[in-house]
């Protein structure tokens, strides 16, 4: 299992609410190998967002273990988790989440600031990633000057800039029209072919179809885990 990017063992998360404890996620065992493209599906309240937060090291589990690139990260502190997010994981959000005051280049370079890179290296790598997602020449633009699809490309460039092994995408096409969605999914497929593992949360079947493997959650439990049946390239 050493090739696994992600391995969870009995992963669970319980929230304490005023009405008592609420188990959002219970006993999830899942292993995702290096270079896999996995879609996570499920209705809202199924626990898929909780699971993504745990995978993204944004939260710590109440029970179970989580091995990220072979290392158990279930009990790490906040700053160690931040370092992991910085180096091992690239995030792509539904709402793009770019910083509006910064140029695209600075947005893409931001993870490198926290990684402690020098200015010229940050600049060079940010430009390279912008070019990789097809936005060369837009370095100085602001996020509000480009389209939603372009913004999501910038977000993907930012996720890629520190060369992570894993990209976590939370409904990346949720705010985009179908044509742009297809473009973004094409970009993800390309990146996956280059060897980057991708975990994608979606509730749209045709988006999930791009992934090679589909995992379904319901009521905090992992209910199905199967390869994508159709052979249609997306």
């Amino acid at each position, binding site marked *: 299992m050493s090739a696994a990017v992600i391995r969870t063992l009995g992963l669970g998360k319980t929230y304490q609410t005023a009405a008592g404890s609420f188990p959002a996620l219970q006993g999830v065992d899942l292993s995702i190998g290096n270079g896999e493209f996995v879609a996570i599906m499920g209705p809202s309240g199924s626990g898929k967002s909780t699971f993504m*937060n745990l995978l*993204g090291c*944004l*939260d710590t589990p109440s029970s179970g273990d989580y091995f990220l690139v072979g290392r158990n990260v279930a009990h790490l502190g*906040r*700053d160690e988790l*931040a*370092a992991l*997010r*910085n*180096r091992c994981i690239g*995030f792509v*959000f539904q709402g793009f*989440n*770019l*910083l509006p*005051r*910064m140029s695209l280049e600075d947005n893409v370079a*931001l*993870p490198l*600031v*926290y*990684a*402690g890179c020098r*200015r010229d290296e*940050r600049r060079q790598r940010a430009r390279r990633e912008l070019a990789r997602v097809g936005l060369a020449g837009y370095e100085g633009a602001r996020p509000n000057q480009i389209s939603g699809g372009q913004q999501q490309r910038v977000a993907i460039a*930012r996720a890629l800039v*520190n060369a992570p092994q894993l990209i976590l995408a939370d409904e990346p096409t949720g705010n985009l029209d179908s044509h742009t969605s297809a473009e973004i999914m094409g970009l993800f497929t390309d990146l996956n072919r280059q060897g980057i593992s991708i975990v994608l949360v979606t509730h749209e079947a045709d988006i999930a179809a791009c992934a090679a493997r589909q995992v379904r959650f319901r009521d905090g439990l992992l209910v199905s885990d199967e390869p994508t049946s159709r052979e249609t390239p997306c």
Partner: protein
Amino acid sequence: MLKAMLGEAWQAMGANRLRSGLTMLGMVIGVGSVVLMLAIGQGAQYSVAQTISTMGSNLYIVISGSTSAGGLRSGSGGGPTLTIADAEAIAELDGVANVAPVQQGTQQLVHGPNNWSATVVGTTPPYLEARAWTLQSGYPFGDSDVRAATRVALIGQTAADNLFPNEDPLGQTVRIRQNPFVIIGVLARKGQNLDGRDQDDTLIIPLTTAQRKVFGNPFPGSVRMIMVQATSAEAMPAVEASMVALLRQRHRLREGQDNDFFLRNLAAAADSAAETTRVMSLLLGAIASVSLLVGGIGIMNIMLVSVTERTREIGIRMAIGARQRDILAQFLFEALMISVAGCLIGLFVGVGGALLTNALTDMVIVISGTSVLVSFAVAAGVGVFFGYYPARRAAALDPIEALRHQ
């Protein structure tokens, strides 16, 4: 990393110019008023020190006084208890630098068509030295003038200006009670004394001449007061003790009998004046510091608003790998930048205000490097102190909650 963060802090400040500017204004007013108040306070201290130094240092004044006759006690200067012989005896004591018996009073001075009322001081040559008084022109009278009771005079600047508006007083004649005095020296300007009296409105003449021709003296050999200068501040207590003992012995005062003279320590008066201005400048500084504090609270307030507004941004930064200390540093930098920028402008405003005060009034102002440095350091401290709590709040945000924040 540091440079990137400073750049971001600068951007954040520029993103909301009006707000940053108003927040900064709080610091500008705070630092400006501290600098201005310190300048005025130190100026007051300086001018008091100047006044004290014109008085002459380490001075005692012994005043003849308090005789009791049948239960009736006169006040100071009430009886002719001090004599010129007392003065000569005091001069022999250890630690005494200068002794000058003084007889003074206000007299009408007349020169041609001009007349002017001034303080006439009858004394001996050591008086000038004791009061550290120099001559602007001419020369002082000597012991022989005192012995011979010559009619010579040294004139102060104010009296000279009024009696001789358009001519050099040197060599001219001034009449006091019909007695002509030849002016042989013009005194250098001294300014006001601690009581606010003009020290230059004066005419100094030999003691003997003053007693015989000007004031008249029913008790030959007596004198109203004696000015005594100790060699140093350290010698003053010893001089005081031996002077009191000497005078009591010379005046044949029995044990338990009150002194028939008064001793005034001018150094003590000077100290208390200096202390008063010191307290005043401390008070000014303290009041100004309150506005600095208010400025600091303004920074804290605006930083808290900023943290709330930028919760989502904080979440994004955390998601892509910002550690808690990165977020803390970012907001601290912003607070620090506002306070330091405000402080710099405040320094200019304060110094400008002080210079303006100096130009528009005759108030003395002193801008010391220390006060500027101190207010700068305090302002930076205020930025860190009041920026810390909001920055801490930002850093403690939960990344998931922060990301979800709209």
